[in-house]
């Protein structure tokens, strides 16, 4: 008698296989960049400069100075020179060269990078060969010295002709370090060494300040800088103002359009296509289109002039007529983005069974009563989606504002992000703006999800 082998049901693998790429996608294209963005806004990677007890990166820390701290420079020293203080060194890359001396003998020694034209590189990009650069100027010494050590204080071991072929056998960095004393954040006097590239010396050469740090630190500096930015207030107010004007108008319009499409009166079969036409246009194109309407010799003035309604040419889009710019932006945004809301509402309307509306009609509900008591409550989930989408898009409004307002007279949050990044080259504050927009979007979405609570029944039908 054979025992029937107990069969264990195999766990279906497919869902897991489907989840894996989703997770990878999320991590690689969403979570990682978002994390980096967040970090930029709150982390200053040049916040503090460690002060070491010797002129070497391997030396131990005696303390640290914040960016901008005043320092007294007592002296300087190259990291490749032992002991004595030197004053006329430059921080520079040095190559150890193997070449033929001017007297014909083989020689090997150090020369600064500025004297060598690298002509040959190894596979990993490190220089392996080159020629000596010619010196400019009539009185210049045509010969280039090779030093025993990688600094100009060292003994000269050979002289090379200009354009002499050299082999690069080694390289090192001659870095000048400052011996500094300063008072740190805690009020303690510290004294030690720091690489000169992090410190800006004043003209006297005896005083200076920490130009930038080499170590990072979390800081609210950028966020404070954003809040204190003179464009922050206008940008934030305008963004909210546009949102408050546009979204209600948009929902009323979209609802009306959707109801027309849903009711299908005679001769409206093409309305859906006409209504959704603006969805096919980029926001910048719409901005430029409306600019061409509102510009001083644009369509609006032409029409008004033709009708004899104006004398001369009124100017709409100028610093003195800020409200006209706002009106133009509102109209452009209404024209451009209402159809997205409409499409969402239409799909919601189509999900309401005909019999439900017929029942309402049969039980005596007029058209407006059906809209009020049946259609609107059943559209709640669609309206919620549309509201979230529209609010998030409203926080991101950009191209239309740029096209119509130029970004100076009327500015919005995303414009400030752009300005900080491209014009002021301040990644951190740009990032702070981006994070601010993200926080606003998340907060509003959360707010809608909580307050416009969808009941299960409405979601189910």
């Amino acid at each position, binding site marked *: 008698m054979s025992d029937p082998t107990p069969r264990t049901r195999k766990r279906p693998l497919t869902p897991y296989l489907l989840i894996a790429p989703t997770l990878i996608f999320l991590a690689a294209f969403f979570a990682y960049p978002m994390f980096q963005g967040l970090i930029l806004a709150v982390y200053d990677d040049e916040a503090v400069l460690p002060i070491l007890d010797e002129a070497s990166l391997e030396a131990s820390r005696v303390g640290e100075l914040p960016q901008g701290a005043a320092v007294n420079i007592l002296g300087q020293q190259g990291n490749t020179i032992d002991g004595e203080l030197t004053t006329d060194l430059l921080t520079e890359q040095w190559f150890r060269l193997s070449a033929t001396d001017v007297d014909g003998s083989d020689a090997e020694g150090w020369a600064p990078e500025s004297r060598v034209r690298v002509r040959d590189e190894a596979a990993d990009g490190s220089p392996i060969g080159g020629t000596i650069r010619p010196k400019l100027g009539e009185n210049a010494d045509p010969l280039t010295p090779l030093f025993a050590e990688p600094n100009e204080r060292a003994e000269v071991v050979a002289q090379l002709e200009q354009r002499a072929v050299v082999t690069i056998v080694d390289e090192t960095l001659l870095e000048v370090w400052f011996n500094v004393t300063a008072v740190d954040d805690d009020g303690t006097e510290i004294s030690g060494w720091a690489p000169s590239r992090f410190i800006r010396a004043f003209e006297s050469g005896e005083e200076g300040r920490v130009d930038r740090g080499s170590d990072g630190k979390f800081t609210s500096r950028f966020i404070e800088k954003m809040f204190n930015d003179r464009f922050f207030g206008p940008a934030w107010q305008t963004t909210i103002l546009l949102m408050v004007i546009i979204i209600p108008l948009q929902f009323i319009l979209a609802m009306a359009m959707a109801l027309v499409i849903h009711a299908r009166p005679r001769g409206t079969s093409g309305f859906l296509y006409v209504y959704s036409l603006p969805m096919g246009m980029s926001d910048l194109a719409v901005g430029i289109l409306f600019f061409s309407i509102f510009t001083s010799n644009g369509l609006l003035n032409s029409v008004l002039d033709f009708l004899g309604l104006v004398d001369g040419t009124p100017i709409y889009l100028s610093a003195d007529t800020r409200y006209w710019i706002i009106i133009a932006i509102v109209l452009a945004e209404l024209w451009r983005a209402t159809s997205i809301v409409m499409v969402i509402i239409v799909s919601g309307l189509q999900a309401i069974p005909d019999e439900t509306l*017929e*029942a*309402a009609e*049969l039980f*005596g509900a007029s058209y407006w009563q059906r809209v009020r008591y049946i259609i609107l409550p059943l559209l709640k989930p669609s309206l919620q989606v549309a509201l979230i989408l529209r609010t998030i898009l409203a926080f991101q409004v950009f191209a239309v504002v740029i096209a119509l307002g130029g970004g100076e007279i009327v500015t919005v949050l995303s414009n400030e992000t752009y300005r900080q990044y491209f014009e002021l080259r301040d990644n951190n504050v740009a990032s702070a703006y981006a994070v601010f927009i993200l926080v606003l979007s998340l907060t509003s979405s959360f707010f809608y999800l909580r307050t416009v609570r969808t009941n299960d029944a409405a979601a189910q039908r």
Partner: protein
Amino acid sequence: MAEIRIDNVSKVFGDHVAVNRANLVVEDQEFLVLLGPSGCGKTTLLRAIAGLGMADSGRISIDGRDVTYLRPGERNLSMVFQSYAIFPHMTVRDNIGFGLKMAGEDMKEIGKRVDEAAELLHIEELLERRPSDMSGGQRQRVAVARALAMKAEVLLMDEPLSNLDALLRLEMRAELKRLLQDVKATTIYVTHDQIEALSMGDRIAVMKNGVIQQVDAPSTVYAEPSNRFVGSFIGNPPMNFLEGVVAVSGDDVNVNVGANTITPDPSIARAVAAFDGKPITLGIRAENMHALDGPAADAVEVTVSVVEPLGSQNLLTVDVGGDRMKVATHPTFEVAPDDKLWVQMPTEQIRWIDPDTELVLSPAHDVESVR
């Protein structure tokens, strides 16, 4: 008082005539069933009465008032929809009270009427719940309660039981019948289920291809179908049809069915005689025939091909001449496939059908017009 009068109503969708010149009078407080196969136009006709789809031509009046072009809300009627059409976002209480609220009744009256309707349907404990967590049967009750709460004089029902499972349908059928007897509304009930129609209606209107075929009491529709379609659509099993040829010699009228000869009932003989020498169709119901295990004078010899024991009866499928028919026998009647059997057909139970028009001949049938 609400008599529904339908005069010459037609409804066309594109080139499909859904309802073709329908004429129907539903008397006050009558329970009329509109019966027909799917696509026969019964729902279209009901919707025209409800006002949910306007009639293209003709006239519909309720209680003497022409409502043909009135909006549904203005017709003083209520309806139970096939899908129930319960408002999913409202509680049961708001659902039932919806029509009253739209009519502007005051809150007290609405509350009272909602409670009444809920009590009738035994759904008092569901009043504060939402339809989403209710079973099909419960939703159905809500839909009926919503219609009854209106106390409208006309009640329309569009296949209200078709979305229920078989057992629940049986139970609701009886309950609906009891309820509607008390409600005293003029009711039009659309169904494709002939058992529902036979068991519930005061009268049945049978429809096919947009045309009303017959309007009569259930027993009449069953026993005396007006044409071949009604006979075949109503009854389970449907009416049997046999092809015969009429032979008249002197005063004797006989019909040859295969090798057998059947003599029509004297009351109909004159009408049958008009088909002398021409084919004619006989219609007879399975339970009206008597199966015998031996030859008899007026019995037809048949061969059994299938025996289906159904509990209350045995249903036999037999070959007679070139035709097949179903014969019901007592469950104790013993028979096996391929047995020979003799079947008596009581002549008064045979319906005679003109094969061209498919109409059932009646004793008063005008002989001349057939010719």
